[in-house]
């Protein structure tokens, strides 16, 4: 069952109950009904399953991935939205890990384990280059477990299935998140045309291989 219900393309509601808390970006609450309290969460303190470890906290501090989170507790219904941007609800069934930029994460079920991953540890120097080129930073937030996640995008997302026999390439600026057993690698086809400013504008791409889903937004603007 999903924690989030869509009101329209830009607002979601979440049912909060004891044992069913919601973690959200600070300031993303639009309204609430019932007896709901909000408390700041320092992701990485390792308490109560609110994810992370000391390493995670250090990672965030180093990476600038320090989007402050808050937890909604009590009993009631909370409305979330941010910046007039579109929201995509992604359901995690526990079969894989969702990777998403911290900036794009609006809310998720509190029972999901979150951690910050250094991209350089995935693909060595290429991973680090990917983070630098795509403007994602060198760290990304990973969520695992069973639950729901609400992710921000400019113009909504499309979900593209990725299969081993059919690798997909994604524009780094349009990339939002990926879920499943997926490898993301940078591929550059920079030619002399790009050097003289006559390129196609698609010189640098993210190569997505494996099996799972990649989420792509309808714009090349960052959050």
């Amino acid at each position: 069952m999903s924690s989030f219900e869509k009101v329209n393309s830009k607002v979601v509601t979440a049912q909060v109950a004891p044992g069913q808390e919601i973690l959200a970006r600070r300031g993303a609450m639009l309204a609430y009904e019932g007896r709901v309290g909000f408390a700041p969460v320092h992701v990485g303190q390792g308490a109560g399953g609110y994810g992370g470890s000391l390493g995670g906290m250090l990672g965030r501090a180093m990476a600038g991935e320090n989007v402050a989170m808050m937890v909604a507790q009590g009993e009631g219904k909370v409305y979330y939205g941010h910046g007039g941007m579109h929201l995509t609800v992604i359901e995690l069934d526990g079969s894989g890990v969702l990777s998403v930029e911290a900036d794009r994460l609006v809310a998720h079920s509190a029972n999901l384990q979150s951690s910050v991953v250094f991209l350089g540890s995935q693909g060595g120097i290429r991973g680090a280059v990917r983070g630098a080129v795509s403007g994602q930073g060198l760290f990304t937030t990973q969520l695992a477990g069973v639950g729901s996640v609400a992710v921000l995008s400019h113009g909504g997302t499309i979900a593209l299935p990725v299969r081993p026999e059919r690798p997909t390439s994604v524009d780094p600026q349009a990339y939002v998140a990926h879920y499943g057993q997926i490898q993301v690698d940078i591929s550059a086809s920079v030619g002399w045309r790009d050097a003289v400013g006559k390129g196609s504008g698609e010189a640098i791409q993210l190569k997505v291989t494996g099996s799972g889903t990649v989420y792509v937004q309808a714009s090349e603007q960052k959050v």
Partner: protein
Amino acid sequence: MTQIRLSGPRVLEATLTGDTVRAATGAMIAYDGDVKFKNAGMGGGDGLKAAIKRRATGESMSMMECTGKGTVWFAKDAMEVLLIQLQGDMIRAESDHLLLLDAGLKTDVSFAGLRGMSSGQGLFTSTVTGQGTVALLSLGGPPIALEVSPQFPLVVDPDAFIASRGQLNQSFVTDVSWRNLIGESSGEAFSLRFEGSGVVYIQPEERV
């Protein structure tokens, strides 16, 4: 034959089977299969004459050629996508609002009348002719198609205009009076007037 369809209101999906389509530079958001992207060259790939005309008139257009076998997804700045099927006829469109041109389509530049002085679009407009699908972009929400018939001419804001199709005469309307000089204008001093029979597409947001 390239299959062109929408994947949601703001994303265009094109399945290429070995042919070439032209798209706005940088508008690819994802692809699978074996597809190559190459700058279509000066003037958007319609030959030297068109390139010189574009250079001279300032109606610039930056397109890339997408060739190969596979599926490509296109989108630009979260604008909504409008598909128009051309059967040998012509549309006039703002070159900034062209997202994709099918293999059988050609573009050129034509004189659009004395309208560009205020609208900032230049005095010239792009024309698209041929057989196939053209994808246009609409800023701020879904586009609106307005019908023009001989009895009912249509006046639109130049900044909301996307494209026009059919046997239309386009003229430029000014409504400048002493009020504009003292800063008391309505903000609608310049408009585009269409007469004849055809369809005019406008967008919900005005270009700035």
